[in-house]
Every structure is written in structure tokens, then in C-alpha cells.
């Protein structure tokens, strides 16, 4: 059963359509990537899932129920725009969010202290948030999102603003949460993170879904690319869409080759063998999610690779 399901959801702000007929389903367990460039409708969709705003039309199911605060005890949410009460201590902040999610005071405190230690914030437990660095504040926010051991953890652009070290800490934490049984849905426009973490993805552009599936399924949407080193021009070989000479050395030419849709690099290798086409080099290029995104969405919705 899907833990999050959007069915023909539309959200309009006046004349502007932020989300347009969006449907997808997130299965329970694993890490789900919600990808798209800026303004693609990711945050709006997540807000609707959390009942912060209501859809103009369409239906949403979360944890098998309608969106609402009744679900808060099973959800952790880290919004894209983050902030904390500056004059609250680290411990009080995490406990406060735990209690808002229905935890009793003792459990919230115990879990808050565990997370504080896990994030290396122990010496700041009683410090006011205003005394923390940006990185430490973000850790507190993540801890506040996770304090209730959520069944569904929704992270909206969780890596933005974090330095590489803290990005790695957060990546590890996301993996840990997933291993512990939580379903993690995170939105991002940084494809590296999605590539490393997600099992399935949805790609959004201008409020519309352009792809839903696994990373491999997404890559399969792109024509295969490889580099051949041969004396002869490979353009006439079956399955090749185009071949461009990229360089030459010692009488051998290097070719950038694009395959026709549905043709795998292995298929081309077989064709070369069957036709006695002399090869000195064969290197298959695996497309990145960034390549997939550019291919599916277009360069005007550029993301960070």
C-alpha cells in the first residue's frame, strides 16, 4: 500500500498553476526522490500532503488517510525554509516539536537527548539556538523533524545550505532512518544526492510530472552513449544514431557515439564483432540523473548535477 498518494492533484494560486494534474504514489519503505528544478511544484506538493495548504482539485492520501494534523505523530517534516525560535534552548526546541507531534514529555526529552548526542550537539544542549552556527541550527531542525521516529519522513531540499561534511552526516542519517523502517521522501534539485540515496524518483517540471520510476528506468529514457576507438568510421553500423570523431592518436580515431533508442551498448559490441569491425577501445557512458533531467525537462529547468 502506498504511504503517500497523489491523484490528479492541481493547485492554483490565482491564475498561476503551481501543480498541474500530478499523480504519483510512494510505496512504504525506502527512499523516494522528488526531483525538479526551482519552481517545479515540489514544495507546494509537499505542503498539500501535509495539509498546510489545500489542493484546488484532486485527492491526496498520506499514511492511508486524508492529509491532516492527526497524522503528525507519524510524520517528520523538514521544510525548505527553515528556522527556529532563537531564544529557546536546543533541548527545549526538539522536545517542543516532539510534544507537538503527540509525544509525552518524558519520551520527547529522552529522544531529544539521544538525537543531540547523535548530532554531536551535547555541549550545546542548554544553549539558546541564537548561539548556534548555521550548520548546528540545521542539525537541530533535522533532529526536531525526526524526534518522533516518524513512519514517513518528508525532507524538502534537506541539503541546501549544508557544507559537504554536514551533507554527508545528513545522507547517513537518511539512510539510517530508511534502514530503521521509515519511508523517506525528499525533494531536491541536487541530483547527486538523489542518485546516491533514492530507490524511486518522480521528476517534476512546471508543476507536471515528467517521469516516475526507478533510476535505471529513468536512465533508459536516454539514448546510450559510448566512446569507440577504431580506425574506421562506425556511423554505418546498425544501432548507431550518430558518431562524431573526438580525436586521433597513432592512426586510431576516438568516436563519441550515440545509440538509437532501445539499443544497449552490449548490442553494439555484438554488431561490431559480427561485422569484423576493428575496435581498440570501447567505453560505455552511464547517464547521470542530471543528464536524464536535462533530457526530459530541457535546459531551461537546469538543476545542479
Amino acid at each position, binding site marked *: 500500500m502506498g504511504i503517500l498518494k497523489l491523484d490528479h492533484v492541481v493547485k*492554483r*494560486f*490565482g491564475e498561476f498553476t503551481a501543480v498541474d494534474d500530478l499523480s504519483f504514489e510512494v510505496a512504504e519503505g525506502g527512499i523516494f526522490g522528488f526531483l525538479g528544478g526551482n519552481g517545479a511544484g515540489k514544495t507546494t506538493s509537499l*505542503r498539500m500532503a*501535509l495539509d*498546510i*495548504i489545500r489542493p484546488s482539485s484532486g485527492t491526496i492520501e498520506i499514511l492511508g488517510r486524508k492529509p491532516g*494534523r492527526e497524522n*503528525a505523530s507519524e*510524520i517528520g*517534516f*523538514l*521544510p525548505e*525554509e*527553515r*528556522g*527556529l*525560535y*532563537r*531564544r*529557546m534552548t536546543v533541548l527545549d526546541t526538539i522536545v*517542543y*516539536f516532539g*510534544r*507537538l*507531534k503527540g509525544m509525552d514529555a518524558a519520551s520527547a526529552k529522552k529522544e531529544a537527548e539521544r538525537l543531540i548526542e547523535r548530532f554531536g550537539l551535547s555541549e550545546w544542549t542548554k544553549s539558546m539556538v541564537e548561539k548556534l552556527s548555521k550548520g548546528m541550527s540545521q542539525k537541530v*531542525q533535522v533532529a*526536531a*523533524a525526526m524526534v518522533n521516529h516518524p513512519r514517513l519522513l518528508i525532507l524538502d531540499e534537506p541539503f541546501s545550505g549544508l557544507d559537504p561534511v554536514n551533507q554527508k552526516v545528513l545522507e547517513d542519517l537518511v539512510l539510517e532512518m530508511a534502514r530503521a523502517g521509515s519511508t523517506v521522501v525528499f525533494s531536491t534539485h541536487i541530483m547527486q544526492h538523489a542518485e546516491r540515496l533514492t530507490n524511486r524518483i518522480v521528476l517534476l517540471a512546471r508543476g507536471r510530472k515528467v517521469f516516475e520510476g526507478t533510476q535505471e528506468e529513468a536512465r533508459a529514457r536516454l539514448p546510450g552513449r559510448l566512446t569507440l576507438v577504431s580506425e574506421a568510421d562506425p556511423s554505418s553500423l546498425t544501432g548507431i544514431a550518430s558518431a562524431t570523431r573526438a580525436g586521433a592518436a597513432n592512426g586510431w580515431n576516438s568516436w563519441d557515439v550515440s545509440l538509437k533508442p532501445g539499443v544497449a551498448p552490449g548490442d553494439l559490441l555484438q554488431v561490431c564483432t559480427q561485422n569484423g569491425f576493428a575496435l581498440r577501445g570501447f567505453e560505455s557512458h552511464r547517464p547521470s540523473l542530471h543528464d536524464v533531467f536535462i533530457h526530459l525537462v530541457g535546459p531551461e529547468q537546469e538543476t545542479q548535477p
Partner: protein
Amino acid sequence: MKNILLVAAREYKQIASTRGFWVMLLVLPVVIGVSQVAGRFFRPQTDSAYVLVDQSGQYEAAIDRRLNLNYQRVELGALSAYVQRWELGGIAPDAIWAKGERWFSDDQVAQFVADGGIDAAWERIAPGKPKDAPAYVIDPPTYVRASLPAGVTDQKGADAFAEALAEPLKGDEIDTPEGQRPLALAVWIPAEVSTTSPVRMWTNGAPNTTLVDNVRNEIARVQRARALEASGLAPEIATGIANIATPIDLSAPPQGAGREQVVIRSALPLAMVYLLLVTVMTTGSMMLQGVIEERSNKLLESILATIRPAELMYGKLLGLGAIGLTILVVWVGAAVGAALSVQGIVADIVNPSLAAIEPWMFAAMLFYFLAGYLIISMLYLAIGALSNSLQDAQAYLMPVIMIIMLPVVFMMVSVIQQPNGTFPVVMSWIPLYTPFAMLARLGAGVNVVEVLGTGAMLTVFVAIEMILLGRIFQASLLRTGQPPNLSGFLAMMVGKHTG
């Protein structure tokens, strides 16, 4: 409800942890305490000594008697007020001090002195005073006659006398029967008082008007008697004429009644109006900053994922209401506590006011206070929700404060002059001003219909305001960009917002 309480507790804790809150909370109790202490320990010194040389031997006793009568009159008045306050009249119903503070004639005071004066009176009263009543403090006489300081003689004439006293009159303290006191006045009465041989007085520079007047009047009175006697009247007739004083029977209403009734009864309700203004403006600003902080710190989205906007709004109102109530309880508690436990300025104002307030008025005062607090707090909350920054908020806040404050200030002036005049009565029926107007008028006497009518109207108004605020709050919290214009604002109020 749990979420509302959690938000309220957080709001309360956050504000209560600020230094500003504690300064505001404690300022009134400190002022009250200081006024009590100041009243007791820092009272300007009015006690002083005088020396008198009466070469004629005719005036000395009269002057001493007059000063003692005046002293005993003051003590008799204060003791009568004490007896009235602690309801001790039953100890000696016929005693002059048993009938409350009023004006006492010379004859009455003379009789009081003949009966033993203030010391004897207090000896009778003291055993019957309640345990919680403080003992009556007998003040020493304001002016005490002192013997001539060492080295000063009256044998070498007025000029030598003056010269010898020049130093002591610069502020030295001299020995008196009541201990050391600064010398305030030296009087030289020649053997024969005339225009060529006048009574001479030297002061320490302070006016000492009362003392000088008393000495002058007594000398004049004795001189009048002497003159009448010299014209052939029998001495007793001459003295009688010289002593003529208009017989006055001055009746004053008891405390809490008569011409002071309105002022006394209104003291506490009027104080509540000022308290309401101060607390709502102060805590309103805190609330405003809190909402703006949540908006500018981008933490609303995290909160709104767990609780409804209405819960957030009600939690804030409840938390800030609790702050207001805390201030009210501490301030009123301090005033009432001071009034009940110690004597002083506060006690003199609060005690009669408390005594004059009927029990239902306390309930009405609390209702109007809380309703007023809610009405204004909600305006602050709405402004906070609409504003991206304190600068934005100022633009909304200034006209709102003016709209609230100006009519209230005018109304307060009007209420003191004419509590049931047209302006205060009309203001009582305008919900925004009802709490202020009704609080201000309560002490002067308002009828039950007016209280119930304005109360019902106020309740409905608060409910409507709450609904409208809820809509504005919900529509504004995650809004970005410039604050809305009038049409956008109206759209929010009728619920036609996007988001």
C-alpha cells in the same frame, strides 16, 4: 486543546524568560515598596526646635499652649482615622476619637488634652486593636521648645541674643526634651511690645511659616486682651473677646461616601484602565515580535505541519493572556497586599477604594479587563501575521494605537469630570472602547442593564473578531511578498484567500 496549551506554554515561557518582562512585572511592586519605605524613612524633616525669650512674661505660656493644641489636633485627627479604619470605635463610643476623622475645635482639642492627650487615648485603644493591625505610631511634636543653648544668654539684650544664636541657626542641632533637633526659630519678646520695640524673630532660613504664624497670632491675641482690658473691660470679658472664634460644626461624610465617593470608588477601576492599557500595549508588542519572528525565521512551516493555524493563534492568545493575567495579579496583588499589610500612601488610596467596591464589581472588572485584553491582543496578532518585519508592523500599528488611545484618553478625562456623561456612555457601547469606558465608569455607578448589555455585546464582538482574525492568520502565515492592500485584507477577512 493539548496543542493550544503547548503553544501557550511556550509563548509564556519565552516571554517570562526575558529581562524586559521581569522589569515590567516588578516595576510596580518596587514602586509601591519604595513609596512605603520612602514615606516612612525619607519623609522630609519637619520636626524642629525653637527658643523663646519672653521678657514680658505674658506670652510664653500662651504660645506653648497653642503649639501643643495644634500638635494634639493633628494627632487626634490621625488617631481618629486609625480608629475608623480598624473599626475600633466600640472601645469607647463616646470618646472624641471614636467618631472618625473630622475637624476639631480648640475646645474639643483642649478637652482631649485635659483627658491625657494622644498618649492616654492610645493607651485605651491599644489593648483592643486587632492582631493584624499595626500599632498606631505617635509622632513627636513638630515644634519643640528648647532651653537656650550653652553660651546664649537673655541678659544682654536682643542683639547679643541674636549674635549668640547666629551659629546654632545655621543648622546646628540643639538639645530638646524630644532629643536633638535643628534650631528653626528664635523669638525675642521684649518687656513691652510696641512699634518701637517689636517682637524679633530669627529663623534658620527655612520659612517655618506655621511656627511664625502661631507665635505671631498668640502674641496678637494676648495683646488684644490686654488692650481691651486697658480700655476698661473686665479681664475675663477682655480675654473672652480676644478668644472669640467662629463656632464651627464641620460634618464630613464617612469614607467612601459623599463628595469623595466617586473618586474613592473609582480609584481601583480607573487603575485597571491604565493597567489594561499598559499591559496590552506591552505584551501586544511582545506578541507582535513573536509572530514576526516566526515569519521571518521561517519556522512557521514546521509548526503548521503539526498543528492547525487556529491552534497556533489560540495558543498565542492564551499564552499572552496568561502573561497579562500574571502582570495583573502581581500588580493588583502588590497594591492590595501593601494596602492590607502596611500603612502608607498606597494603603490610603486602595483601602477605601476596596471597601467601596461591591463583590459583583470585581467580577465585572475582571471580565472587562480580559475582554479588553483579548480585543487589543488580537489586533496585534493580526498585524504581526500581516507583517514581514517590524517596519511593516509599525505602519499598521501607529494608526491602530492612535485609534485606540486617543478616544480612551479623552474619555478618561471626561469620566473623572462626569462619569455618566454622554461621551463615556456612548463609548461604553462601542465594543473597541467598551472595556475601557465601562471599567472607568464602574466606580461611579452603572446600572445592571448597562453591564449586562455591554457584556453581551462585547462577547459577541470578541467572537466575531476571533473568527476574522483566524481567517487573516491562516491566510497570512505562509504568505510571501508585500503586505496586502485593503482589498487583499478584506479578501482575507471574508475567507477568499489563496493558499
